[in-house]
């Protein structure tokens, strides 16, 4: 018995395939312009990888901002509920999730049974999101993969006061022209995102244990800055970026 979860995010599309209630395969591609095509493509690819035919009966739950464009899904469920299910599958003690994705960040409080009790999302701007980090890494000409590690070398993080991505970028550019070290600017950027996201976490009612999910969980600089700002340790799964898709596949098991 197979189920699949497809999470169409603003930047990447993720898929998870479950066999008899266990994670069997995962996949990640860029979403691009056409989210419907991305959903179809990733589903075909993950089935191929598992050696399955599309004709085989597989329950599918779609999630993410593009959840409505997956025509073959049996159900669309929001990423809030899917992240809760995914985080609890990865670690069943989790009470709080901080999800930092490409275009939004969320803080989700769970009850003892893993049910969503409260959640807070960022506003419509890019402050405190993966996109913010992308823009800043580009301004500093650093690979996104190395951005977090570089920031950890800083002894004296440069303060970034603007929350707005566009204004923060011009702030970064003036820091560059002043000759401030790259790692200090990078550290300042990660502190800025941590401040923004901790405010969300406080509003949602921060409770430990906390799991960080979403693409930004892969950035060690952001994770460390966040742990420092919240004054706690966090749990990060190797599948952090796939949490939503995993949760969707978990929830697909309940479909009749």
């Amino acid at each position: 018995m197979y189920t699949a979860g497809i999470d169409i995010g603003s930047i990447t599309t993720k898929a998870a395939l479950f066999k008899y209630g266990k994670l069997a395969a995962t996949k990640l591609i860029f979403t691009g312009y056409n989210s419907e095509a991305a959903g179809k493509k990733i589903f075909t690819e993950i089935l191929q990888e598992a050696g399955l035919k599309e004709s085989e009966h597989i329950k599918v739950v779609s999630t993410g901002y593009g959840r409505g464009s997956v025509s073959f899904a049996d159900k669309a469920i929001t990423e809030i509920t899917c992240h809760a299910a995914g985080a609890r599958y990865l670690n069943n003690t989790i009470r709080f999730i901080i999800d930092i994705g490409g275009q939004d960040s969320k803080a989700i409080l769970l009850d003892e049974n893993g049910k969503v009790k409260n959640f807070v999302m960022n506003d419509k701007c890019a402050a405190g999101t993966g996109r913010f980090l992308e823009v800043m890494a580009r301004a500093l000409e650093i690979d996104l993969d190395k951005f977090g590690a570089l920031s950890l070398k800083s002894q004296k993080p440069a303060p970034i006061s603007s929350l707005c991505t566009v204004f923060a970028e011009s702030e970064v550019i003036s820091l560059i022209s002043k000759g401030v070290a790259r790692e200090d600017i990078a550290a300042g950027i990660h502190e800025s995102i941590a401040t923004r996201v901790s405010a969300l976490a406080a509003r949602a009612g921060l409770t430990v244990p906390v799991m960080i999910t979403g693409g930004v969980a892969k950035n060690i600089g952001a994770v460390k800055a966040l742990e420092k700002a919240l004054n706690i340790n966090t749990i990060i799964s190797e599948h952090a970026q796939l949490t939503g898709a995993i949760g969707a596949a978990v929830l697909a098991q309940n479909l009749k």
Partner: protein
Amino acid sequence: MESLEILTAAVADPFTYARKLKKDGGKKVVGYMCTYAPEEIIFAAGAHPLRLFGSNKNIILADGHLQAYCCSLVRGVLEDALSGDLNFLDGMIFPHTCDTVQRLSDIWRLNVPAGFHLDVVLPVKLNTASAREYLIDVLNLFRSNLEKALKVKITGDDLRKSIALYNEIRNSLKRVYELKSKNPQIIKGKDIYTLLRGAMIMERSSYLKLLQSAIKELEKSAIKTTNTKKKRLVLSGGLCSHPDIYSVIEDAGGDVVADDLCTGSRYFAGLIKTDGDPITAIAERYLQRVICSAKHKDNKSRAENLIQTAQENGADGVIFMLLKFCDPHAFDYPYLKEALDKAVIPSLLLEVEDQPQAQGQLQTRIEAFLETL
């Protein structure tokens, strides 16, 4: 529903409607900002009270007068005024409520040439004996100022007739809400929105007729239908200028069965006594009605009213819909949320603006909230 079609047209373009009313019926049109403007007195003076909402156009001129922390309602109304779209107004009424509306009054006085300009300087506290006395004085002063501005005499009889009409409108709107709560599927949320908004835009006597015919039709369909299994929600906040939000909620598997909005139940809550001095009776309604966040009564009545509304309507949850930068409502939110938490009523906070929304995010929040209920 034919009555609804007529209402929808007027609500979609209130300025054209008001201009026509002025041209064809010779009515003077008096704009006003919120439910603390004593419409009954304006109507008694033979003028047409038109509530202004701002027409969602891009803000260009208003930003020359307003800072970034002013709400989109005030921004939108000022833009309409400065762009000349409100030149047909014979006058404008500003009730003393939030800071931003008071400052809009000042900006208007200095920059908008159309018509007369009246402030109604209401008391802030509504629960003291002196506030009551003062409020009655303020409304009497408003009556005589309006008489001078419109060059008419407002008699006691004029006021009593107006009060009777307003009582009938408010009773009918209450009936609409009762029908919706009992049978949410007989009318869409966006149509309830239109029915309510019509009351603030259309000529009141003809509006009442349309409303009554709509009620007759609703009562007919209410007999045939059964209850849905959708989640029942209460909307709380200042004003709603987003009929779309009702559709988003309905598509996500919910129904708005009651509200605590200035453009909703606060508009029709409470009737005016028909015996005794009419001005005193109008003041009494303001003193007793559930308050707006910009007013003070005590530390619990708003929360109690919200909880009662939720419980009486069998609500599964409350959605706070706050206009961004509306500080009175934002200051009230933490205490209202705490009271709901204590009463174990789940709630969701949405911040909205009059200008178009990021629909995807709004949808995700509402759907996720409904998934938790």
